[in-house]
């Protein structure tokens, strides 16, 4: 079967946009970590995510004859396909850790599924990224447990963060005709499997920490079709400023 180039291109944008925007959010924490070592840890993770986004954009660009920079810097907010959780404004450290923990678990299982992709480039990117994500997850899981088992204050901040973030989590597993078609062709990761594994990990960790998994099942949606929160426009304004003001600027 001939794979639709357009479907593959759009799928790549979904993956890459999640990572670029989350990387940008994490990079805004540079210099604001709770202490030097953790500052470096979060910034390292931001750089890893940027590297992953770059590889996926570069691959997408070969399908539509565009450069990675064009895809990152010259699309508007309605053309971005990232999940909304990646663009939310940073709150306190517990909130940032909770978001990373939720994202890292999903990324870990997504790449594990993507290893089986019939698309050799995506499978290779998944193999390389999985090594990085394994570490990201180890880092966020450790902090998630420290904060849950720490003081009343740290636990309260973490449970507030979980309540705040929960309704953004299932968008990570939301499918659409593009993903469904590519899953059938053996190209994309099956998000049903990713979601099952994600929920299993969440339930296990929450049980160990005596945390309650939120009951609400109403979930935000829209990021994949370009309907974003008000935060994405501001991120792009800052992130794309240089390329917009000085087209093709390079150093």
């Amino acid at each position: 079967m001939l794979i639709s180039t357009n479907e593959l291109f759009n799928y790549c944008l979904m993956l890459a946009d999640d990572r670029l925007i989350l990387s940008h959010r994490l990079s805004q924490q540079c210099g604001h970590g709770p202490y030097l070592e953790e500052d470096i840890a979060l910034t390292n993770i931001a750089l890893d995510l940027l590297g992953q986004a770059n590889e996926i954009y570069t691959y997408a660009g070969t399908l539509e004859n565009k450069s990675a920079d064009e895809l990152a810097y010259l699309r508007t907010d309605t053309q971005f396909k990232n999940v909304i959780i990646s663009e939310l404004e940073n709150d306190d450290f517990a909130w940032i850790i909770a978001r990373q923990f939720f994202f890292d678990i999903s990324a870990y299982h997504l790449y594990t599924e993507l290893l089986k992709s019939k698309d050799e480039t995506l499978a290779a990117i998944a193999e390389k990224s999985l090594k990085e994500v394994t570490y990201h997850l180890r880092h966020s899981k450790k902090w998630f447990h420290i904060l849950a088992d720490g003081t009343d204050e740290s636990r309260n901040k973490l449970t507030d963060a979980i309540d705040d973030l929960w309704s953004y989590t299932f968008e990570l597993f939301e499918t659409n005709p593009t993903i469904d078609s590519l899953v059938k062709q053996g190209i994309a990761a099956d998000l049903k499997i990713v979601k099952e594994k994600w929920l299993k990990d969440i339930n296990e960790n929450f049980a160990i920490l005596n945390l309650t998994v939120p009951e609400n099942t109403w979930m935000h949606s829209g990021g994949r079709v370009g309907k974003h929160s008000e935060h994405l426009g501001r991120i792009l304004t800052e992130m794309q400023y240089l390329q917009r003001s000085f087209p093709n600027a390079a150093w």
Partner: protein
Amino acid sequence: MSNDTQLDLWEVFTQRKSGTPFIHAGSLHASDNEMAIQNARDVYARRDKPYALWVVPSNSITSTTPEDNPSFFESSEKAYRHPKFYKIPKGVSVDID
């Protein structure tokens, strides 16, 4: 010492290749051994690729003090402790200070 409020202090040692000595890389803050090994990875292994890392709580290290120096190190004006009285066979490479 100044007041250090940023968790406990740990010493980091890196090994470049299997079988080579671990070398002191520096120190860092962490609350326990898992966080220490993670921070060591982030702070001291982000550019090089070490083969292995050690982390040790700084307060587990026993050190000499400068007051120990006269009795520990400066009483060694003893030529007989240096292997300088042997003829080295030709062709043997030696590195003695």
